[in-house]
């Protein structure tokens, strides 16, 4: 069984960065999504966090998350460009090749599609010399880019090869997006797919969705929407997606349980998806290969 396609979001686990990285590795994961706050919030130093990640043996799925970047003008734009540059440098230091960028929820952001596309294009060009790809994700509480279809429109408008989509299964399922909408997306445009399930049968409002997204997610196969999640992933494979999957499971309860216990649950989810849903036994061609840890 090959687990290389599935990674765990390290922010899903509790404990020190080192503990969490080790728990993920011990459960068989070969890649992990890293939160910028975990690097700069390291009790020793940013350099120590960078070293821990590089020494962990895990490939970095990506760094998260740049927020409220696009649509700003003047000094606010310049400020956000500085923030973006700082995150790109951090991403490069940990050997990451992808920066997750969430659609702006700022009330100061312009809603003009051309302006948003222009800003994201600039972000992509900033990331380009470092070999970093920008995975842009719609947010249901964004004013302009609420879902992957809207994000795909913006990305087409921006038209830059290292700018693509991040799709969060939670958003798709919670908002009841028809899976056929994925037919409109070029699989090469999808850079990252985040997976999680949730316990609630139904989500009634955007506020409820935001709260569930931030606290009550569970691993695939543990929630009330296993069937939908399975269909979502099968659909992605059908349209030709061959990138990474990351378990992005924010759950307040998990943060009160030992990292190794939660990592085991993540591993069970990977088993279920790999063996039951996707029946993957061989590596998929054209996959990014596991890179050896490179000293900083």
């Amino acid at each position, binding site marked *: 069984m090959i687990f290389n396609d599935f990674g765990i979001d390290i922010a899903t686990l509790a404990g020190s960065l080192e503990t969490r990285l080790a728990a993920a590795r011990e459960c068989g994961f070969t890649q992990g999504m890293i939160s910028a706050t975990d690097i700069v919030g390291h009790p020793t130093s940013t350099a120590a966090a960078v070293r821990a990640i590089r020494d962990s043996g895990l490939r970095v799925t990506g760094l998260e998350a740049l927020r409220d970047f696009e649509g700003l003008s003047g000094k606010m734009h310049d400020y956000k460009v500085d923030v973006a540059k700082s995150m790109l440098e951090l991403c490069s230091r940990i050997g990451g090749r992808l920066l997750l960028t969430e659609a702006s929820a700022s009330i100061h952001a312009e809603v003009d599609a051309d302006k948003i596309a222009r800003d994201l294009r*600039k972000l*992509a*060009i900033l990331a*380009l*010399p470092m*070999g970093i790809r920008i995975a842009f994700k719609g947010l249901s509480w964004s004013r302009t880019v609420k879902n992957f279809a809207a994000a795909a429109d913006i990305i087409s408008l921006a038209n830059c*090869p290292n700018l693509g989509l991040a799709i969060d299964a939670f958003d798709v399922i919670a908002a009841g997006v028809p899976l056929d909408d994925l037919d409109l997306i070029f699989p090469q445009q999808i850079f990252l797919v985040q997976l999680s399930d949730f316990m609630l049968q139904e989500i009634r409002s955007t506020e409820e969705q935001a709260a569930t997204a931030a606290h009550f997610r569970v691993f695939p196969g543990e929630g009330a929407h296993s069937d939908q999640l399975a269909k979502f992933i099968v659909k992605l494979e059908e349209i030709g997606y061959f990138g990474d999957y990351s378990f992005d499971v924010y759950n307040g309860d998990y943060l009160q349980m030992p990292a190794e216990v939660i990592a085991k649950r993540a591993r069970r989810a990977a088993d279920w998806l790999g063996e039951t849903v996707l029946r993957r036994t061989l590596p998929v061609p054209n996959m990014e290969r596991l*890179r*050896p840890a490179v000293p900083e």
Partner: protein
Amino acid sequence: MSNATDRESVPESPNPIGMDGIEFIEFTTSKPQALGGVLERMGFRPIARHRSREVELYRQGAMNIVINSQPADIPRTVEPIERPILSAIAIRVHDADAAFRRALDLGGWEIPIRAQALELNIPGIHGVGESLIYFVDRYDEFSIFDIDFRAIPGVDPNPPAIAGLDFFGIVQYVGVNRTDDWSEFYTQVFGFKTIPDEVRFGIMPRGLLLQSPCRKFYLQLIEPDGTAQFAPMEEHLQRIGFGTPDVIGAANQLEQRGIEFLATEKVHTSARGALTKALLGGVMFELVHAEPREPRESGKAAAQP
């Protein structure tokens, strides 16, 4: 209603920054004399030294090469080591400040100002790997070398070029599946154009060719093949290509000066081109057949509206 004078509908100029060729190419090394020796064998002559930095100017014909051995003072730039590294390209543009600002607007990374008093502040952005791209607009009546450099006494400041050698292009190694990215970067920020696959120059035809908007030089983007595909991504400027109307004649003259050329079944000197053996741990030069360039028009190429 269409209106031929409606400026709003004019598409972006094919040469948005008024690019006008290469002002200089920079190597960085901790052994500048060793590289200087190689450059002299290639036909260059030491001309001048920088007033405040450990930088030397070499010239032949219209080509300037500088050797930098100053310790790096900016992050993400080349730290001098023994093996010379291609560390910067300075491109001639109509208005350096305008070109620089445009590049920043589009997502270029600026480099901090480091000019000393009364020296020129040459604006630049980060390029591939640890290399830099400078914008220079003073190259006509007087040049940056007239201000920031001190001439070496008694040397001819304009030594002729061997067999009409001139800058033809630069080869850049890129990571796996990175050709599209870099092509986008050069197209977007500088106005380069991709050349159709069937158009090839020289004897090293791999990769994607981009032509500068001034049509004076090329960039060649080459992805790794074979087992190199699985190595960690390594991207850098790899070698300079010199154009000459007479490759065989140029190669003969350079061989007499002690430069050796590759002579394998696949890569050997021909009328189309030639490749030198690697020197000093990796420095190579390529010769490419090119028609002589028409004499330079007086005045700079203006940025087209």
